Every structure is written in C-alpha cells, then in structure tokens.
C-alpha cells in the first residue's frame, strides 16, 4: 500500500525536487497562462480582501493586534500546535513501526483502522470526546463503581489537544510508514553487525532516515492545528480560528481580517521554517525502494504491549467517536424538533462536494500543466500563488469571501457558486498537487509525438495527456470531494440560506445540544468519507 494519494503532494517527502527542462509549445502556453492567471486571480480574492479589511481598520486594527488578548490568542494557537504535533508524532512513530515493520498480528487491519481516524472530522471527534470524557460522561459512568463522581472538565487546551492529536496522527503515520518501508536494510544490518541492539538500531539508524518523512507529516499536523476550527470551537479553546469565527459571525470584519492576516503570516512562517530546515542539508535522500525484502522485526515478549498500544490508539481515534454516535442513535435524548430528511442532507452534501471537486479539478489542470512543464519565472509564480489555499484556513477564506460578496458582489452573496468558490480556493492545492505529480510522470515526448502525427495541441492534451494523467486527476478529485464534505467553517459561513449539509446539521444540532440529532448525519458522513477513502486506496494499489 502506498497511500501517498491521501496526503497533498506538496507535503510528500518523496516529491521530486528538480524538473525536466521540458519546454512547452508556443501556441498553447499563452492560453494556459491566461486561464491560470484567471484562476489565480480568484484564489487571490481572499488575501486581497483581508488586506483591504485590515487596512480599513487602521489604527483600531493595530491596537487590536497589539492587545494582550490577541497575543494570548497567538500563544494559545502555538501551544496547541506544538503540543498536538508532539503528541501525534509520539503516537505515530511506534504505530507506523509496529504496523509497518513488526510481526504484529493482523497489522494491515490495525493500520487500516488507525487510518480510518482521518475520515472522522475534527468537530465530530471533539463532540464525542466531550461526551465520552466529560465530567459526567461515558468514562465517568464506567468509573462510577470506583467512587469517581465527576471527572475534571476536558474543555479548553486539554480537550482541543486530545482531539487534534487523534485526528491528525494518521498524517504522520502515512509518510513515516512509507519511509520505514523504503529504509535501506543494509544500513540496519550494518548497525547490527557493529554490535547495536534493536532499540539502538531503531534510534540511531532507522529514526534518522525517517526525518524528512516525519518533518513532512509534522508539518501537515501543525498546519492542520492552525487551521482547524471544529475542535477548538467545540472544546471552547480560544485559538485563532475560534476568535476569527466569533468576529466573523458578528460581521466585525476589520478585527476578523486583522486576526486572519496574522494567522496567514503564522502559517507561512511555519512553511518557511520547514523549507529552511530542509535546505540546510539535513535532508536525507531516501533510496528508491530496497529490492530486498525488509526484515520483519520479531517483537517477542513485546508483542502484547504492541498490540495493546495499537488497539488503544484505534480505540481513541475511531472507536470512541463511533461508540458515542451509536449511543446517541439509540439513546432517548431530546431530539431537534426540526426534521431534516437524511436524503436531503446526503443529496446536498454529495452534490456540492461533487460539483466543487469537478470545478477544482478543471481549474487545477492548467495550473498543474504549468507546474509540470513550464519554466518561466512568471509560470512558477502563478503556480506558487495557486497553492495559497495551503496557508489559508477555511475560516479565513470564508470571512474574506462573505465580506467581499456582501459589499461588492451581491449577486454572489449567499449563493452556491460563492460556497463552491470558497471550497475551490481552499482545496485547489490538493488537486493541482495530485495532477501535477501525475503529469510529471508523463513523458513530454508523448505530446510531441502526437503533434508530429497531426494532432493539435488541444487534441493531444485530450487524447494523450489527460488519459495518461487520469489516475492523478481522479485522485485529486476524490481528495477534494472528501475534504469538501468534511469542511465546516466555509460551509457554515458561505452557504446559501436554508442549505444544509451533513456538516452544518451536525454543527447546529451540537449548537442546540440536540445530541441525538448528531448521530445520523455523523455516521452518514463517516460512511461516505470512508467509502471515498477506500476508493482512493484501491486506486493507489492498482496504479502501476
């Protein structure tokens, strides 16, 4: 199992650094640039409006920025990010090692179940965690016989960290596991022959080889924490996104914009830091896959602890949310008097996700072509800017677009196209990345061949390039679909009046404490996401 398709390619450690100096044909390049420029212009709307909003705030904005409270928000977010990244990595390394390299029974099953945590959106995990580990929650009722009356409140930093740890750890497991499987066996054997024991070999030889993969996974986790809204909102932890949401909800755009810009700056700083780290020569090149079978580590009497560890991780990340949802489904709690048929929710959710995935894939193709083929500085800048979604958290995009539309583009205000635009800006990088890496695999001579055989540039694109890149394009499509379906803040803020999806339904039911009404849409969302993920994995497996 490669599993690389789930991770946006920008974060993959195995991404090719240089590219072929393949030159693009004169005629269609200008068209490509024109389309790409238009797409990038759309992507830049949020940034432009944030700047306008923040500048409009003037001195007020500066004062707001420098208040202790804002600084507190920054430190809250950073603390959450660091703690979560640390914990997620701490869990992910042994999990990846146990399921990847050890003689753990049914390790593929453990792996699949662990990765399933990715299909559970953070707000669902948070809601179910507060039910399970709240003062009078499931855990307390289990401990009741032991005389435990109430548990401490997990809201706030502890709850948000706990939630995000179990939501994000698969993002570290995936690259770590891939790197573990590609690790050079000879190095480990050399270590053993030099008298190192199992643990020393792991620490001194295996782990250093994992560093680039780990840093990619940790970056993903850190970015996730900064941009996540669901978990911090449910856990009422005053991180950036929650503060922005409160300001946006009340249409206090100047303050929201100031916070949004700071959040973007923080995210970019993080990316910069990471690329610095890598260009520092600390980047270990991972070989192109050892031809010899990697030796399976015999766990011996550590087998039981290993199994228990993996089971515990899966229990927290997957079983607890599902158990709570099923409990709510069966329980007698007050339900919302508003009945929204599940099929309406499903239709809306799948419909808007599919439409967004298509829009995004179409918009991504020209940029991916530019990224894979073009060489001019202008092209590279276009592509870089198109990746802006990576540093724009959903809440920031939503606030900028709602501001933009309500002030300047009333015909788009509260419409589906605006909602889809929001999704598109956020998830364009996923599609470009997947398509780009597929295109990079395609020999540019194929197109030239077709041209010399009488096909026009457009024909050869449609008959040669697109079919050859279809796996990548479809992977991007599925990736965007999956993420749009789970996306909360963009949906909440940009949706047309009366438009409900699984995510908004879960949110409003949570908001009004109709916990039973969370169960069905929650389970449905998980089911659909899991099926899409399954399809992606199958695709990965069969791809050459």
């Amino acid at each position, binding site marked *: 199992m490669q599993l690389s398709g789930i991770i946006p390619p920008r974060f993959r450690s195995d991404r090719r650094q240089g590219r072929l100096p393949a030159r693009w044909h004169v005629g269609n390049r200008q068209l490509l640039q024109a389309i790409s420029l238009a797409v990038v212009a759309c992507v830049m709307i949020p940034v432009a409006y944030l700047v306008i909003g923040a500048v409009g705030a003037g001195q007020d904005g500066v004062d707001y920025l420098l208040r202790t409270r804002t600084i507190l928000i920054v430190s809250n977010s950073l603390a959450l990010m660091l703690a979560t990244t640390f914990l997620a990595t701490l869990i992910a390394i042994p999990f990846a090692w146990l399921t990847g390299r050890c003689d753990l029974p049914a390790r593929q099953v453990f792996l699949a179940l662990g990765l399933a945590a990715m299909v559970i959106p953070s707000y669902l995990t948070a809601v179910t965690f507060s039910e399970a580990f709240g003062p009078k929650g499931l855990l307390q009722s289990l401990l009741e016989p032991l005389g435990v009356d109430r548990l401490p409140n997990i809201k706030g930093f502890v709850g948000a960290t706990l939630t995000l740890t179990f939501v994000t750890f698969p993002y570290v497991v995936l690259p770590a596991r891939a790197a573990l499987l590609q690790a050079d066996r000879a190095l480990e054997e050399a270590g053993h022959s030099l008298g190192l024991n199992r643990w020393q070999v792991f620490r001194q030889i295996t782990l250093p080889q994992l560093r680039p993969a780990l840093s990619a996974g940790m970056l993903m986790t850190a970015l996730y924490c900064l941009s996540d809204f669901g978990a911090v909102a449910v856990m009422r932890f005053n991180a950036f996104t929650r503060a922005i949401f409160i300001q946006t909800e009340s*249409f206090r755009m100047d303050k929201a914009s100031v916070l949004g810009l700071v959040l973007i700056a923080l995210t970019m700083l993080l990316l910069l830091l990471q690329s610095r780290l890598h260009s520092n020569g600390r980047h270990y090149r991972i070989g192109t896959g050892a031809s010899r079978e990697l030796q399976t580590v015999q766990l011996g009497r550590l087998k039981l602890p290993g199994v228990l560890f993996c089971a515990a991780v899966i229990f927290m990340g997957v079983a607890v949310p599902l158990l709570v949802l099923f409990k709510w489904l069966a329980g007698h709690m007050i339900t919302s008097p508003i009945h929204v048929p599940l099929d309406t929710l499903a239709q809306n959710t799948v419909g808007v996700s599919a*439409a967004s995935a298509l829009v995004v894939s179409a918009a991504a193709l020209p940029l991916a072509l530019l990224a894979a083929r073009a060489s001019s500085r202008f092209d590279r800048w276009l592509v870089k800017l198109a990746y802006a979604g990576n540093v724009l958290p959903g809440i920031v995009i939503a606030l900028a677009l709602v501001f933009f539309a309500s002030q300047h583009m009333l015909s788009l205000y509260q419409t589906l196209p605006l909602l889809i635009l929001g999704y598109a800006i956020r998830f364009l990088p996923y599609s470009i990345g997947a398509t780009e890496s597929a295109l990079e695999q395609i020999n540019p001579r194929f197109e030239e061949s077709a041209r010399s055989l009488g096909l026009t540039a457009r024909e050869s694109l449609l008959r040669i390039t697109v079919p050859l890149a279809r796996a990548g*394009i479809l992977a991007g499509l599925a990736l965007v679909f999956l993420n749009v379906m789970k996306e909360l803040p963009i949906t909440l803020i940009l949706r047309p009046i009366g438009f409900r999806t699984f995510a908004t339904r879960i949110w409003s039911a949570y908001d009004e404490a109709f916990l039973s009404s969370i169960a069905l849409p929650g389970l449905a969302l998980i089911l659909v996401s899991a099926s899409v993920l399954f399809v992606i994995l199958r695709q990965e497996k069969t791809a050459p």
Partner: protein
Amino acid sequence: MSATRITLFSLGVLLVALAGAPALADDEPVLTVYSGRNESLIGPILAQFSEDTGIAVEILYGGTSAVANQILTEGENSPADVFIAQDGGALGALAAADMLQALPEATLSRVLDAAFVSPAGLWVGLSGRARVLVYNPELLDEMGLELPGSILDLTADKWRGLVGWAPTNASFVANVTAMRVLLGDCDAEDWLAAMIANDAQAYPKNTPIVQAVINGEIPVGLVNHYYLYRFLAEDPEITATLHFFPGGDVGSLINIAGAAILQSSDRQDLALQLVDYLLSDSAQAYFAAKTYEYPLVTSVDPSVDLPALADIEAPEIDLSDLDDLQGTLEMIENSGALD
C-alpha cells in the same frame, strides 16, 4: 479510461450536483427571514406559516447579536425582509440605525403591555422570557449551598467554578446591557470581571447549560426560563428547578423575542403577513405550548405551570434602552469572557 468516458463521468457527477442544488431556478416570491432565534424554537411555526399561506420562507439562523450585526453590515443590500430576534436590544439597535419599517397600529395593538412593543412602533414582541437561575437542588444540597438573592451574589467565592453561563448568547448580552443601564458601565464591567475571576463555566448556548445542570456537572446556570421545560417534557423526573431572583433584581430581566420588518425589504406586504401570523392566537398558542414562553397576546395563556408574568419581580426597565448591542458585546469581549 478514455477521454469520452471521463467526460461522461464528469457529466454524471455534474448532474448529481445540480440535483443537489435546491431552489436555484425559483422565481416564486420568497420571504427571507433572518432569525436570531434557534431553528428548533421558530422553525416549525415558520414552516406552518408557509403551509398555511403558500408563501415560501427562506431562513438564515444565527445568534441574535450576530444576525443584527450582519443586517447592519449588509445595510441597504440586505436580503432580509423580516428580522426575528430573541432580545429587545438587538431590535432596538436596528431601530436606532433607522433600518426598521414602522408597523401598523392593528399589529402593534395585539400586544397589550406597552413594555413589549417599540415606543415608535418599529418592532413588536412575540413572546416573553424571563432570565432565571436554573439549579440542581440535590447537588446544591450536597454542596451545602443556598440559592443567591441576586445575580450579583454569584461572584462570591463559594460559587467558584460552579456557575454556567453563555457569554455570547443574546439573552445574556441583553442581561448585561440591562446591568449597564441600571447599575452603570463600571458595575457591569466589574461584575463580568468578577464572574470570570470566579471561573464561571462558559457554554455556547443555554441548552447545554441546562443539560449540564441536569447532569450534575454544575449546580447552577444563568439561562432563560423556558429551556428547562423542554427537558421536562422529555423526562418529567428531572429535578432541576428554576430560581427567579427576587426584589426587582437585574438577574430577573424579562425580555422578549420580537420581530421587525426591514425598510429595505421589497416584500412589505408578505413580511407584515408573517408578523401578524406570529401574533395570531394559533402562533401564540404554539409559543406557549412548544417553547414554553409567555404569550404576549392576552387571549392566550401560558401552557405550563409558570409564575404569572406580572408576579415576577422583574427590574423596571425600558427594553428599547437595551440597544447598545455593540457596546455590550465589546465589554464582554474585552472582559475575556470569550477566551
């Protein structure tokens, strides 16, 4: 897969997508309602209105203060025809911004108590709600605590970490505004700061507070009176009880949920039809029976065993004076209650 198959696949997905996009090509008149009331409280009666009159209604739900701010931001361009709030102050804020259309006498006169109608006739109350302290008698007993005589007493050390509140909730915001009006900004600010220092437990809304009190997570919470009855309707065994602060305490503020018509609306007739509908006997009976609020039309009685509106020792205050929404929101925000 060939290019044609990709095209076909894309078309298929697109069709599904279009099927999922509701009401895109709908030319019928649609009334747009911005509701600061929860969907569970107002949704069913609005649906009933559509069914009875054939007028389609689109509803945006949000917190009352948030929705009021949204209308203020949208200004002339607001798609909203009718604004339904659960706080007289928010209605007052829009009235002060000169965005509301005066209502006809016939509509206003449905509500007899002048305290629940805008003096200028710009908004009308739909239902009444009292601020209360919901408490868990067993837990209170266990902890050896006695009910406080005033909302201001909750800052005492014995309540440390035990009071639930919803600082972003419009009813709470209105309560703080009332405090500012009656006691002055300084006292209101001090009270907020003292509550935070006393580790008041923040919840997003009233319902989870009541749930937490019932569950025994906290002994007391500041809420509106009617939330408890929704839980009682499901489970009459619940022992949680309401406490009305006595002696005209600011903690016993009686507020309204009310409605107003936007000046910018180009469907004034339909909007008025909706407001009148919400004041009709049947709608008032709905509020009484389903939301457990006080009907404001005399011909309808409260449905549950509530103290009569007149018997609550509420503070003397003009609801229209609660219009400095922004001021209170900023005070709450600066107090750190949202952190």
